[in-house]
């Protein structure tokens, strides 16, 4: 609802035709103390900024299965995968294993680098066959909608 402010002005009757004057003063005049934050214009938070460091090399994938629940990765989670990050032992990675994309933790074992699950009852997958297995990207975050 618009507020009407009545402002009385003294005018010489012969200079202004009051019948035809436009309602110039009908609107609320901007007055009072200006907001002190007006010069600090900030955007509202965008979840993308929190999850994605390198937009051009970051892809999203969806999880199926339960073998990474120990790393708090659950079925239907969206994983943030950054291909520009160099994979190292200890990181959670997306790897291509004989044509299938899987998410596992990359770990150094006595026999070499292996893809390990975070759930009992899953055998580690040794990455010794460079033809069939390669690291696709490094998981840098996850998102879950309840």
């Amino acid at each position, binding site marked *: 609802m618009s507020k009407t402010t009545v402002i009385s002005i003294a005018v010489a009757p012969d200079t202004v035709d009051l019948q035809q004057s436009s309602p110039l003063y009908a609107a609320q005049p901007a007055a009072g103390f200006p907001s002190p934050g007006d010069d600090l214009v900030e955007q509202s938070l965008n979840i993308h900024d929190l999850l994605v460091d390198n937009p051009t090399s970051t892809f999203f994938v969806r999880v199926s*299965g339960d073998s990474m629940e120990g790393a708090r*990765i659950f079925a239907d989670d969206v994983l943030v995968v950054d291909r520009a990050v160099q994979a190292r032992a200890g990181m959670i990675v997306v790897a291509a294993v004989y044509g299938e*994309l899987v998410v596992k933790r990359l770990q150094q074992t006595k026999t070499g680098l292996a893809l390990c699950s975070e759930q009992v009852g899953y055998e580690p997958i040794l990455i010794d066959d460079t033809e069939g297995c390669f690291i696709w990207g490094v998981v840098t975050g996850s998102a879950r909608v309840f």
Partner: protein
Amino acid sequence: MIPKVVLYGGWSPAVRGYFDSYKLGTILDMSQATQIALLDCNNFFVSCERLFRPDLMGKPVVVLSSNDGCVVARSQEVKDIGIGMSVPYFQIKDIVKQHDVQIFSGHLALYRDVSRRVFETLRAQVDQVEQYSVDEAFFVVPQGVDSEVFVAQVKQRVESSVGIPVSIGVGFSKTQAKCASVQAKKTNGLHVLTADSWSHLCQTLDVGSVWGVGRSLSAVFATHGIRTVADLCAVPSRQIEMLFGVVGKRLQAELQGVMCDSVNQKRALQKSLMSTRSFASNTNDSAVLADAVAYHARHIAADLRAMRAGATTMRVMLRASPYGDFLLRGGSKEVVFVCPTSDTFALIAVAEAAIVDLYEQGVPYQKVGVSVHGIVPLNSTPATLFPDTKPDMSGLLRTLDTINAKAGSELITVGSRLQTTTWQARSDMRSPAYTTRWSDIATVST
């Protein structure tokens, strides 16, 4: 009368020729010259399809044009089988079955997104980049770096960050870079030309394989005894200019390592756009034709708006079935706009009027298409005294574009007579929109 070209042997007359015309003798010291690189994605559409499908590595993969008509991209395995480019799909159906070739319908949203990632990764590493097509870009190799090491690093970074294999060729001009990239594809994906290696390669390089030399030009070259690049370089530049004009002279100079066409970072606008599609089956239904032509006009208008550009001419094409007696019964109609426009309403109105004009009762039509030409940026168009298109609808249309982009399809559209798209051939073998739609992202198992 074409003057006869006297051919000199060897390298020195070419050098003499280009001293004469360019007075740029110092450039002969190639170590100081600017090096131009061409980055080219290998079998780009196929590589995009493989990005989230590692099971397709090493398997034959073909990508078809948007109406599943022709082959537009082939994996190396498919090239080895002997399937050609642009071959109609129905012709290769048997070979496809025999070799278990994986077929995909072209998925432009995916390819565009991956392409953007490739070139943004490149731009993060070099300053001067000119994107030349959806899968190629020229860039200037920075001064004072070891070019072999530098381009190897660029290649490695693009391949690991985006996951698309690329080849890089380096020369002293765009034309040389293009030749080098062809060589790169034959080896490990990198080829850096030196003055020595180039003069060696020249001797065997067919002039017809050079960028910008078509079949007809190479035929003319052949009549003058010019078969290899070395032959062309050896002709005195003044004679080349007499025979082939400034275009020939520039081509020769570029091949000699003199940069005539510099790396232009400003993205030039496309000169024309085209949207065309065959009907699922021939039709003479004028409502179907109107609906189809409106579909093409809408898509072109949206593309123009995305480019912030307008078109000055529009051509509507109607093609009849080549069988029976109808081959010559189609036609096309061109309309010129006084003001360049990207207004969907204006384009549809013109397109539908053109179809009404072209339509003949009883002719089985096979295909309809719309193309626009004379594309200019809208912010630089002069004001017109008597505009022929409606006042600015950009606010409404921009809102429409935003909603449709979010929906991933034409959720809201300008009304047309039919509300179905049954006339469209379907793209049945399209891959998921892995990078542009949340419902389509790839699944990884744990």
